[in-house]
Each structure stands twice: as structure tokens, then as C-alpha cells.
């Protein structure tokens, strides 16, 4: 694959670095190893990995919205909840296989996002943030009225639904897994695929023309519009897309939990606040940041969550300290030290008939 866009008159535009090429190879290997994980490690580890991967997918989605499109939403729990409820509805009321229901759940979340975007995109900045929060609350309250799925009480997935899921019997037959372990493995693979595809997709998007337009809209919407960028269309597309992906993640998470209630599925803390925390600790506006952030979050939770309120206080404290001393997150710090870019998106202009001594220029 060529790494440059050829431009006439001796100019070169580079986005890829040597490091990023090496990293691409490493990550491919990593994905392969992770794919084999259910055969290599205990169920406990698989469950931890599932948690990490689903949170990572949520974080990448939120990062795409906030870090790249400038849409600081605090209402992403709406889509987690909608996806989860759609899954339960489809499985319990329509008798669909959960695996088939998952993409439909994403679709449902996306459909919900259409009217939502209409309201939300009239708002800017903090108004947008609060607006999305309120919309998510409306979602929670509406689902709490859905008596068929337990209203405010919530409901559980029937055991058979997950037991007899597509592919479970295959796994049982081929690898002699227990049903619950097979269900775990299946959910894990879905989460892995989702996280990997999300990252690949986000990266691809950022390197595309649309990604450039998105960055422009984030930085200055008026100017972007004046230069022919269809800001509204771009933002809506990203919003719908993240709704779709977030909905799928939500469905997956609640397939694994097997129990849902409006308060849990539409939880601001669990599905948005922690996700924001992950992204910001890691480094917003980078693909590397959320990956780093989710690992830190997981380690923290594993090590300290038994300390109850002290753990939460420490978490809050860490959020504050990060924002004050490393506003660009951990990856920002690393980047400043080392200049690493694992997912470079900058288009750097090189070569051409340039004076060689221009500092900061293409050859400087």
C-alpha cells in the first residue's frame, strides 16, 4: 500500500510514519492472539476482556463524537439503553435469536437518533451537552413506562434465550465448552470484533476527506460552512453512526448481563461519565487515548473497587488531577515526550521546490 498521495510538481503528502506501519503489524497480531483467548485463558480473564472491549468501543464512539466532531454529548446512555431494550424486546417479545437481534438493536438506536439529532443539533456547546442529557432522561422515563418489559422494575432475559443462542451448540460440540462459557466466548468475540472494527473504521474515517471536514467543523463551523463543508450532514452522519455502534455495544453488554432496568440501562454514570473519564484520562482526540484510558480504568477498578467510597473518591480525584496537569491525557504526555503517533492522521506536506532553511516548513 502506498503511504503518500502523489501530488504534482514534486510535492508529497505523507500521513503514515514508519512507527505506525510497525504498529499496524503488531496490532494485527494482537487481534489474532485476542481471538484465540477463549481457548488460552480462564473465563474470568475473558470476562475482564469483555468489559475492557465493550468500554473501549463505547469510548472510541464517544471520542469520535466529542474529540473529532466537537459534539460533547452527555447523553450517550440513551443509545446504550435503546440498544439494550431493543435486544430484550426482540428476544423476549418477538422471540428472535439474540445474535440476530444485536444488529437490529443498533438499527433501533440509530432510528431513535434521527428525531433526537433534530433537537440536539439546534444546540451548541454546553447547551448541546445538557440537551443530550435531558433527551437521554426522556428516553429513560419513556422506557420506564413500557410495561411489557417490566416498566421501572426491569426484566431478565430468559435463560433459554442465551443458552440456545446461535453458535452455542457448535462451540459446545467442537470444543466441549459449557453453555455459559460458550455464551461468554461468543459475546467476547462479538465485543472484540466490534472494538477492532470501530477503531479501524474511525481511523479510516479520519484519514478520509470526510474526516478532514469533520475536524474543520469542530474547529470552526461558520468557516467550514463558508468553505463548502456540509456541516449539518457530516455531524448528523457521525451522530447516527455512533448511535448505531453504541446501540450495538449496549445490546451486547446487556446480553451478557441478562438483566435490564431503565435506571441501569440509561445510567449516566456508567455509560457516559465513566466513558468520558476513560477518554479524557487517555487523551481525547486521539485513537490511542481511549485504549490507554480503558486499561487504566480497568486496572483502577480491579485494584481498588473494594474500597467502596474511597475508590470512587480517588477516581474523582484522578479526573481532576489529569485535567489540571495533563489536559491532553496520558497519551498527550507520551506524545510530547516521544513524538510517537501510532494512528497518524496529519497530512504533512513534504518535498517540492522549497527553500531548505525554512524552519517549521516541510523540510524543517
Amino acid at each position, binding site marked *: 500500500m502506498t503511504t503518500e498521495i502523489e501530488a504534482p510538481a514534486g510535492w508529497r503528502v505523507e500521513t503514515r510514519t514508519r512507527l505506525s506501519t510497525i504498529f499496524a503489524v503488531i496490532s494485527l497480531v494482537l487481534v489474532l492472539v485476542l481471538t484465540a483467548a477463549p481457548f488460552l485463558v480462564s473465563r474470568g480473564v475473558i*470476562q475482564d476482556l469483555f468489559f475492557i472491549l465493550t468500554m473501549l468501543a463505547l469510548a472510541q464512539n464517544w471520542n469520535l463524537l466529542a474529540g473529532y466532531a466537537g459534539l460533547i454529548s452527555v447523553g450517550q446512555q440513551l443509545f446504550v439503553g435503546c440498544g439494550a431494550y431493543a435486544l430484550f424486546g426482540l428476544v*423476549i417479545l418477538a422471540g428472535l435469536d439474540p445474535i440476530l437481534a444485536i444488529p437490529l438493536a443498533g438499527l433501533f438506536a440509530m432510528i431513535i437518533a434521527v428525531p433526537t439529532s433534530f433537537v440536539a443539533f439546534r444546540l451548541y456547546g454546553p447547551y448541546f451537552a445538557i440537551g443530550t442529557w435531558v433527551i437521554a432522561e426522556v428516553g429513560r422515563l419513556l422506557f420506564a413506562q413500557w410495561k411489557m418489559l417490566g416498566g*421501572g*422494575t426491569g*426484566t431478565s432475559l*430468559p435463560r433459554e434465550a*442465551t443458552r440456545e443462542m446461535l453458535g452455542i451448540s457448535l462451540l459446545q460440540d467442537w470444543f466441549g465448552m459449557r453453555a*455459559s462459557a460458550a455464551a461468554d466466548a461468543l459475546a467476547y468475540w462479538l465485543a472484540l470484533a466490534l472494538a477492532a472494527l470501530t477503531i479501524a473504521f474511525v481511523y479510516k474515517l479520519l484519514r478520509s476527506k470526510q474526516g478532514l471536514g469533520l475536524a474543520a467543523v469542530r474547529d470552526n463551523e461558520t468557516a467550514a460552512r463558508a468553505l463548502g463543508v456540509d456541516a449539518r450532514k457530516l455531524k448528523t452522519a457521525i451522530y447516527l453512526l455512533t448511535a448505531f455502534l453504541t446501540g450495538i455495544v449496549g445490546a451486547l453488554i446487556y446480553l451478557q448481563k441478562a438483566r435490564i*432496568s431503565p435506571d441501569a440501562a440509561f445510567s449516566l454514570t456508567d455509560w457516559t461519565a465513566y466513558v468520558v473519564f476513560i477518554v479524557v484520562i487517555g487523551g481525547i482526540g486521539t485513537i490511542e487515548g481511549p485504549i490507554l484510558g480503558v486499561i487504566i480504568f480497568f486496572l483502577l477498578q480491579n485494584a481498588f473497587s473494594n474500597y467502596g467510597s474511597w475508590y470512587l473518591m480517588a477516581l474523582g480525584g484522578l479526573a481532576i488531577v489529569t485535567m489540571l496537569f495533563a489536559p491532553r491525557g496520558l497519551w498527550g504526555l507520551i506524545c510530547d515526550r516521544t513524538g510517537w503517533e501510532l494512528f497518524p492522521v496529519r497530512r504533512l506536506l513534504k518535498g517540492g521546490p522549497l527553500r531548505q532553511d525554512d524552519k517549521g516548513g516541510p523540510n524543517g
Partner: protein
Amino acid sequence: KDVAIKLGYVSPQTGPLAAFGEADKFVIDAFLATTKGMGLNYEVVVKDSQSNPNRAAEVAKELIVDNEINLMLVSSTPETTNPVSTTCEAEEMPCISTVAPWQPWFIGQQGNPGDPASWKPFNYAYHFFWGLEDIIAVFTGMWGQIETNKKVGGLFPNDGDGNAWGDKVVGFPPVLEKLGYGLTDTGRYQNLTDDFSAQINAFKQAGTDILTGVMIPPDLTTFWNQAKQQGLKPKIASIGKALLFPQTVEALGDAGHNLSTEVWWTPSHPFKSSLTGETAATVAEAFTKATGRPWTQPIGFAHALFELAVDVMKRAEDVGDGDAVAKAIGKTKLDTLVGPVAWGSDKLPPFAQKNIAKTPLVGGQWRLKSGGGYDLVVVENSLAPNVPLGGKLEALA
């Protein structure tokens, strides 16, 4: 054998429901000391649900998969018991649950709560507590003690408890109708509502003498103050959940006097621990001594959970085999600190017989003590005549 039997325990120890988990540490410390003295080797892995259903499901899974426990114990409100029980059922992990009326626990875990035909019993999840039929009997028993117009106002929120209480099939409405009470139910309000004037107006219009419901403490305070400001003067107010803890009653100031509530356990309950032989009174006293806090109702049930655990594990053919343990649970017949516990009773509807065991319930009324503070006086015991009465129901001022 020197391998410890591992018990997993989940309860809300922090967050809004933390009052329920207050006695956990005390109970578990005492349990470990007792079993050690008896030469039994038990280990308890305690997890905090942080009052959050998402977290409850997560820690349950951790306990099962990472800690490889032998038996799950879970306590306090459907927000914690239901996700944990559901997880156990999926993971084929035997589980004993308590401190949630059985309907929200059982029906709340069914795929379609609206369709009784689809309800199925569980293989691994068992629950002991009382049910709505009991609380209805207790409440109406109390209401019968004084002269009223039999008009009842109901305050049921849209949460696990509220939906069950207000349910048209298993909840208050059908029974009250049968007993000749007229119920004004304005609908399921959302928890943490700031204004109850709609309900108050409806109750005033209906001229209700009796108020009932299952409320969280802040909502009760808001409602009660507003009711007084707007001149709603019922003769009786029997409210579930909000009035469990003395602190919340004290928070009402003098207005808490003569409010009535359900009572699941008091130091005067005539039961003994099967583990230690202590009476309810001694356990409550020991708690107050150890923590400096007044006794609360969850103490007895937390204690009973561990009694059951020991009993079940003794009888289980193989403590490492989930199915064997679940079988042992099903066959339990034990006199605990909260009364006799036995699953499979024919007093329950057929669908619930397998997984539900019932403990006795009585009714009580909070009375201002002369020196300040409140006493909980048992005023109704028809379901459990062996619990001594402390007086008769008094009308609100």
C-alpha cells in the same frame, strides 16, 4: 478436608441504599468467628453493589468466575437481588436471596412480567422473605382496628416495589376491592418527585381516610409535608419501605408520630439463631454495642442468610457441585433468627412454590418517646401470633 467453603455476598454497602448494608460487617465478622469456633472452614467474599444494578451484575459475575464461590448470598432491594439472582441462574450458581418482597423478585426476573403464563421457576435462585399478600393482610389488619370510611389513597412509584404493590393482579388493588376498600391510585410516579399536589388533590377529592404506599424516604417527607400544608388529614398512614429505619422517621420530626409500617424483624421476635442459639434481642444488643447504632431490621435477615448457608452446605452432597447445593437449598427446613424457612410451601401460588420461602410479617407503628426519638411498637400480628403485641393502632392526630 481443609479447603474452605467459599460464600459470595453482595449487598448495597455504599450509595443511596447503603442503610440496608449497614449491618453486614458486623454480621459477617460474627459469622466467621462462630464458624471458626465450631471448627468449620468458611470464607466470605464480600462485594458492594454500590446501590447500582449494573455493578451488582458485574460483581456477581466476578464472584462466580474469578472467586469461584460455592454459594451466592444476596440481600436488599430488587436493585441488588435481581441482577445477582439472574446472573446466578445463567451461570448455574446456587443463590439465596432475601430482603425484597417475593413478587418483585420473582416476577421482576421474568422475561414478560405482564404475562403470568410465561413465568417459569428457577433452578438455582432461591429467595426467602414475605410477599405482598402478607403486607396487604398486615395493613388491612391494622386498618380494621379503628373506624374509617375505608377509602384508601395509594402512592406507588414506578420502581420494582411500587409496580408490584400497585399491580392489578398480584398487588393491592384486587385484594382491597375484595375487602371492601375503595382505592384511589393516581398512577406510578417517578422516584424523587418534588411535588405531590396532584395526588393530594385526588385524595382530598376522594376523601380518603387511609394512606398507603411504598415510598423512598425523601419522597415520603416531601409528600407528608405537602399533605399537611394542603390540609389532607388522613386517620391512618401505612407506608412501606420509607419507615424501615429509625433515622428516616426521626428525619420527619414530630410528624412521624403514629405512622405505621410493615415490620419484618424486631428484637422482640421470638426466634433464635440456629448457629449460635442467640435470641433476636441478644443479636440486636450485640450490634448496638459493637457499632453504637440503633438496631435495624436487615440485621436479622443478614444473619439468617448465613445460618441458611451453613445449613445448606452441611446437607449438600458435594459442596463443589452447584446442582447438589441447589438441591439442598430446595430441601431446607430451618428455624432461623427470622423464623422458620422452608422452600416448597403450598401456601404460595404454584409457579412460586419452588423458589420462594416465606417469613412472618407483622405491623408496627412509630411512637414518639417522651425523651425524644421513636419506638417501633408492634400493633398487628395476625400472621405471626407468636410475635408479642406492644399495643393497638392509634389514629393520626
